[in-house]
């Protein structure tokens, strides 16, 4: 099978949410000695971008994003040992640590954002819901995050976003991270007031903003 065909298969496997096909294509690729980094970029990542685009125009929904993410991971798992052998580094858009703030259990908006970020090459660590101040900060440090994202859907949990930013400042590590905030009642005015680097109303805009913030790092 030609290199182009194998890469095309990888991309298709993601779009078709087919874990069996992705593993097969990835093994095929190794057998033929094709550069795994090129395959990731032109195959797996391109497939993820295509799924993200489909979501944005309403052709698929959250479950497809999650399945695409799982398919992507299945492919990467096969390729990882090869990449390690070659010593090359897999390119990534950035490391994003994301969670819903303490006291708040709203989950789905944050989950959509996590998945869309993955379709654009971010490595996303979803800390879940009701995430404490200390977890946000310790995880961001431990994982060497580029961006911290905080979701708050309640007016009474928005203060938790401010608290995280103030804590980062007091620890003297505010400038190590870009901080993004979002969720229903949050707006640009609040973002300015608490000194966040960015706010976005929708997950789609949030992804664009995250890419922009990466350029400023």
């Amino acid at each position, binding site marked *: 099978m030609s290199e182009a065909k194998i890469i095309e298969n990888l991309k298709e496997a993601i779009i078709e949410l087919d874990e069996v096909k992705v593993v097969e294509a990835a093994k095929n690729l190794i057998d033929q000695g094709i550069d795994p980094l090129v395959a990731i970029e032109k195959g797996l990542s391109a497939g993820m971008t295509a799924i993200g685009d489909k979501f944005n125009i309403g052709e698929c929904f959250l479950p497809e994003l*999650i399945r695409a993410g799982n398919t992507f991971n299945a492919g990467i798992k096969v390729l990882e040992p090869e990449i390690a052998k070659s010593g090359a580094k897999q390119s990534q858009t950035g490391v994003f640590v994301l969670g819903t703030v303490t006291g708040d259990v709203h989950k789905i908006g944050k989950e959509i954002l996590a998945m869309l970020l993955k379709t654009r090459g971010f490595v996303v660590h979803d800390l879940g819901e009701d995430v404490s101040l200390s977890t946000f900060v310790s995880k961001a440090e431990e994982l060497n995050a580029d961006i911290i994202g905080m979701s708050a859907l309640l*007016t009474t949990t*928005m203060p938790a976003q401010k608290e995280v930013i103030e804590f980062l400042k007091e620890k003297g590590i505010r400038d190590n991270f870009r901080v993004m905030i979002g969720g229903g009642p949050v707006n640009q005015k609040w973002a300015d007031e608490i000194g966040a680097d960015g706010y976005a109303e929708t997950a789609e805009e949030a992804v664009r903003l995250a890419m922009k913030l990466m350029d400023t790092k």
Partner: protein
Amino acid sequence: MLNFYEVFYRFLEGPHISEMDYDLDFDQKLRDTVTKYGIKYDPQNPIPQDDQMADNVFAAGLEFYEKIGTYCIDTLRVATFTKREILEALAEAPSEPVFGTDKDAKKLIARPPESDLPPWFFIGAAGAAVTDERVLAAIVEGYGQVPYGNSITTPSITKINGRPIIAKTPLEVLGSIRTVEVSKAALRKAGRAGMPIMNAISTATSDAAKIAGSQFGLNPADGIMVGSMSELKMDFQRLNEVAYALHCGSNIVAESGPLLGGYCGGPEGLAVANVAYHLQSILVQRGTVHFTFPIHFKFSSNTSRNTLWSTSISNQGISRNSKFPLLTSGILASGPGTEMSFYENAARTITTCVSGGGILALGLAKNVQTDHLTPWDPKFSVEIALSTLGMKRQDANEIVKELLSKYESKIPEAPIGKRFQELFDMETLEPGNEYRELYYKMKDEMKTYGLKFAT
């Protein structure tokens, strides 16, 4: 019906499964059921008129719930129920619960599609934020004055002593208590002392704050609202609320908010999942009534064509097959004092009314802007609802299509409108000229679509 202990033990003893696996299983089984029952979204008809399909949606929801069960995020286990257990619960579910006390006490009964009985009017913006106690008192008094109102939901205060309330802190406990105290006093002032408060004390995010609040003036004939988490999930905090409410003999308003575009997928899945919630709300949330608000994931509102269709077919299916009462909420994309809000309000109200059940009126500006609510928006919903009594789905469908053409394309950029304080006099609770003129202009326009009003 299985008792609550037995249900709870299943959360302690059911099979373990990771949350993501449950979510994906939910998606797969829902898709399979939708396909099996041949349920198909029809954008041409936001109010479908096919009884067979409505019954299929109900049957699909029952089969789906039997297959998927409810997930507990604290134990990572699933509680499932057999078909027999679900059918028994449905047969034995409350059918004529009484809410409210004294002269404000009333039976809440299930209402079939195209019914000529007035729906139950649950007045309020379902937990929308208001600044403080002063705005809360004015709004609730205004709600108490809405003609034909049967019960209210209080907004959430977000400040106490001039400072922001922070979730999970003592400020939230105090805010929750004050919400009840202020609201009960305001209803008394409106002459509706026994009008039931049927919400969760929306300032309360925790079980502790909710229970604390309920000690200061709520009685069992009000209702403690217990929400399900999305989708079909519970946690101990919510189950604690159930345990507490059952022990005080309190009415329980079992809430669900299934999301179009999330794990439910498209409008067909949303309709079927909503039926599953109806069943969960009897068995797990131990509801006295099921209160649901299907919502669109991008617009955070439920007036888009696909959410209307989904609400309609699902309400028809539920109301034709269950005597456990159902209330459905409207959440508009646009805010108070805008023309668009009247179009959205009318479309949403007509759709829910002719499809069966009672209505909650009304969330505005996606329910996320502070103080963006008025007592006259629900008043408009009531007027619209009463003008649709006995209306055929086919006729309602034509009107809703016309209304959709007025606002549909504007949903993504909906105007947020103005704050209550800007539109109304906070002392007299009367609207200013701007709002009043718009109200009557829009009411007149509604007459041109064939709606008939008493005045």
